């Protein structure tokens, strides 16, 4: 989840690498460093903290080839010594991933006289390449990589030579004119080029300024396809907002419209997917669905469970990807993997496991050409554009949108939803983006509530059925960005334990939109009110009863019960944002967290 950048060309490498690293900062930010070949030797500069801290300590370096890194610690503490690049003789390496057998390699190399200065696994790699390096850098890299167990994306600098390689960790090559780039993520180099090549596992790239050559593990040259990226860098800029997160919350109506575009035909009551490879008869044959995901995507998947069960009548298990190890999948089951980046290591590992047992696979992801898209049968893209804030917002909403569409589509094919009901559902669904715009237009209540409760140490979010996953998501958002301890609970579960924690100092956010379980949620609200907890209810705008039981109410526009979680989501996002803002937290880059987690 760290960021890697490499450059070789005509321009001063340091400035370009620093600029690119800034765009990768959301991937990790506890330390950073660069290595530049100045014509005679490799100069390395590192610093603990953020890129701007690194920028302050870098002198003028003249050199047109170099590598850079932003780190998020997995091995060894975040400090200057453990920051990348790591060097060994005239070799400098930046690395993303985990080397599992680094202890053995470290012992072996120590015996050969290599001296280790850091606590990182990456240093092993630098020494190992040095150990094999005679005259051909590619051969040295290939030999070193053969000894390594684990995952990696690396860029290696030796003199003015630049080599990149990957296994189970993302890496791309950017093609410019008289200059070429290496990066772990597309936004890093979008400013310079839109032509990229996706490196596959066990491929090595030799990056020269005029051309890039690709090799397999046996050093046979291979041909690669060039992709053109149609993203705007706009999305990587804050455009007037104080934080990416708020900007991205505001982009949700657009993200939803884009996710719906060309897929909804309301008059016909039809949904059309381009990337779905499941025939109608296969959809009818699905016996069960397993949804695998992590973090926010897990919460989306959890709502997906209710949707598939209610709308399509299919049994669904939702599993945290890192716990999905013992697949009980059968050929009749469908595995849906949800990953914003398409690079989430835990999700990819679980997916591979599931695939080996012969079930069908489908991915919901936001990133075209990401690793996950190459591993599954069907891909459905959320069209949210790049998301920079570490706390997922618009990609969560788009994931929900895709899950709604899929569940409705499956339900119709399986005869659970009539054409007419489908039409009515699609009309309501199409109206959701405008209803979000309306919510965003009036945030006063939320801001007020946030300022009152910003100093609380604990928060509870409660909801039943469809609103339970949103309670989880609300708690996750608040934890992530405001550092307040928060729990999401099924409202009926409080009395089985957590009620003991409820006092006048634990605000409770109750998602109480109109629906089947409304009366029961009101009863649960009374339970917490009896313990004097301040309660904020998220309720339907037409609900005139709720204010009798709670301290504050935030209203959401009226929609069908099944779609109301989308609107409640926006409220919990804004609530978390404004609480974190009132607490002066670094909202876009919370401590200890990274945007896409590419280690297991």
């Amino acid at each position: 989840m760290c960021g890697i950048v490499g450059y070789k060309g005509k321009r001063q490498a340091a400035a370009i690498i620093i600029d690119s690293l800034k765009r990768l900062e959301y991937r990790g930010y506890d330390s950073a460093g660069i290595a530049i070949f100045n014509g005679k030797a490799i100069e390395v500069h590192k610093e603990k903290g953020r890129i701007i801290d690194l920028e302050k300590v870098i002198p003028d370096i003249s050199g047109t080839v170099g590598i850079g890194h932003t780190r998020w610690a997995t091995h060894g503490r975040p400090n200057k010594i453990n920051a990348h690049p790591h060097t060994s003789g005239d070799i400098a390496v930046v690395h993303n991933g985990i080397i599992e057998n680094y202890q053995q390699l470290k012992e072996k190399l120590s015996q050969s006289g290599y001296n280790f200065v850091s606590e990182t696994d990456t240093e092993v790699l630098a020494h190992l390449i040095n150990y094999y390096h005679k005259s051909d850098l590619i051969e040295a890299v290939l030999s070193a990589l053969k000894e390594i167990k684990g995952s990696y994306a690396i860029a290696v600098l030796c003199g003015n030579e630049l080599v990149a390689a990957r296994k189970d960790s993302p890496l791309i090559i950017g093609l410019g004119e008289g200059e070429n780039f290496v990066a772990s993520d597309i936004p890093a180099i979008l400013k310079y080029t839109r032509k990229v090549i996706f490196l596959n596992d066990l491929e090595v790239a030799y990056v020269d300024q005029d051309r890039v050559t690709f090799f397999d593990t046996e050093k046979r040259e291979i041909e690669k396809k060039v992709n053109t990226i149609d993203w705007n860098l706009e999305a990587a800029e804050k455009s007037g907002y104080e934080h990416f997160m708020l900007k991205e919350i505001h982009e949700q109506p657009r993200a939803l419209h884009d996710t719906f575009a060309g897929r909804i035909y309301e008059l016909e009551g039809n949904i059309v997917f381009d990337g779905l490879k499941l025939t109608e008869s296969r959809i009818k044959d699905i016996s069960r669905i397993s949804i695998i995901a992590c973090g926010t995507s897990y919460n989306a998947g959890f709502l997906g469970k209710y949707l598939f069960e209610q709308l399509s009548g299919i049994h669904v298990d939702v599993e945290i990807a890192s716990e999905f190890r013992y697949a009980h999948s059968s050929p009749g089951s469908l595995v849906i993997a949800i990953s914003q980046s398409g690079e989430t290591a835990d999700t990819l590992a679980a997916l591979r496991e599931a695939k080996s047992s012969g079930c069908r696979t489908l991915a919901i992801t936001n990133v075209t050409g990401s690793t996950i898209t190459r591993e599954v049968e069907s891909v459905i893209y959320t069209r949210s554009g790049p998301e920079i804030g570490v706390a997922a917002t618009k990609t969560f909403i788009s994931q929900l949108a895709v899950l709604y569409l899929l569940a409705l589509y499956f339900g119709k094919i399986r005869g659970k939803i009539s054409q007419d009901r489908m039409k009515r559902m699609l009309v309501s669904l199409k109206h959701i983006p405008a209803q979000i715009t309306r919510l965003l237009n009036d945030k006063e209540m939320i801001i007020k509530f946030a300022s009152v409760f910003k100093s609380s140490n604990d928060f509870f979010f409660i909801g039943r059925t469809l609103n339970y996953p949103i309670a989880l998501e609300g708690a996750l958002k608040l934890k992530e960005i405001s550092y307040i301890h928060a729990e999401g609970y099924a409202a009926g579960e409080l009395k089985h334990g957590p009620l003991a924690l409820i006092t006048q100092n634990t605000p409770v956010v109750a998602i109480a939109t109109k629906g089947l379980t409304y009366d029961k949620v009101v009863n649960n609200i009374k339970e917490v009110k009896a313990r004097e907890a301040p309660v904020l209810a998220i309720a339907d705008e037409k609900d005139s009863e709720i204010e009798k039981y709670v301290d504050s109410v935030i209203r959401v526009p009226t929609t069908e019960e099944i779609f109301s979680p989308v609107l409640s989501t926006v409220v919990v996002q804004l609530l978390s944002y404004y609480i974190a803002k009132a607490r002066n937290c670094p909202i876009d880059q919370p401590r200890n967290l990274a945007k896409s987690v590419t280690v297991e």
Partner: protein
Amino acid sequence: MKAVILAAGEGLRCRPLTLTRSKVMLPVANKPLLEHIINAVAENGIREITLVVGYKRERIMDHFGDGLEFRVNIDYVFQDAQLGTAHAVKQAKDHVEGDFLVLNGDNLVEADTIGDLLRGKRGSVTLLAVEREQTMGYGVVISENDRVMKIVEKPKEMVSHLVNAGVYIFSQEIFDEIDETPLSETGEYAITDTIQSMIQKGKIVSMVESRSMWMDAIHSWDLLKANAVMLERCKKDIKGRVEKGATIKGEVMIGENSIIRAGCYIVGPAVIGKNCDIGPNTVILPSTAIGDNTSINSSVEIQNSMLMNDVRLGSGSYISNSIIGASNSIGPHFSTEVSRDLMIEMKGILHHAELLGTVTGDDNAVANRVLIRAGKMIANSCSIESGVIVGRDIPPGSIVV
């Protein structure tokens, strides 16, 4: 040269449309006023734009982002209190160097209008003047050749037909002059007061008269006129799908993923946004703009009107000379009455409207068979029940039975 566009004001006289967005975001031919202005600026090779924003600024930022989509670089400065045009210009001080262009975000201009001003630049201030038959309510420019002698704000009698268009080229010295500008009687720091004082000090304030387009929308219904003018410039461009049996005549633009169903009859100039579902058998007549994600059911007739984004309109409805705000859900057999020479009362003052049906704000839910009397308006987030004849203005959040 950089451009500063003033976009912080609310636009009180454009209510109810400005209850949920600022005036610069009101659409004309499916694009916000401000977007037309930014396009005109960009066509003159000015790519660095500072937007001074305030009221409902997030709507502006959400639409324009950093400007890349509009081929410009945009940065934003905030004017928290609406203390007048001079105060607004001052906010941009750290964002401009050398001479810079200043425009109002709610006056429609074309590229040539700005080109005329740029070519005629002279002295400390160059201002754009346009000829108007009626000068009531404007600042009137009194000049000798191209040298401005005086700007008379809202004159009671006819002194000249040239009015100040609110488009300027300033040099850096304007900022010192703004600091010396006193608060006006109306409690604002007005840039015209700053310019007036510069004239009195003997500084060169020149003017350029342009015959290219300059339009201001004072009232919400003036947007219909601006919409018609801008639609005249559209060229036929059909990206969506037109079913067999639908007729498209003249210059009609249809956005991506939109469907025009059989039996529809659309006469340009007209524009239909993306992701729309129109018809079957719906008639759309000239000078009509229909926003994105809009669904219009069967047998509807619309003429010389604007429907903003996300509107849903029931079958058998009739809309003429009207503006329907975003995200209205309107049931079947909705009808607008149209009348000439209406006097519309706002805050106790009567305003004239030449030809008008209705203007509605955003997010209203209108049930079946509702008729709106000519010139009556519905604010936002209202709920109108079946069979109602709306004969008065409806305030925000009302439920009308």
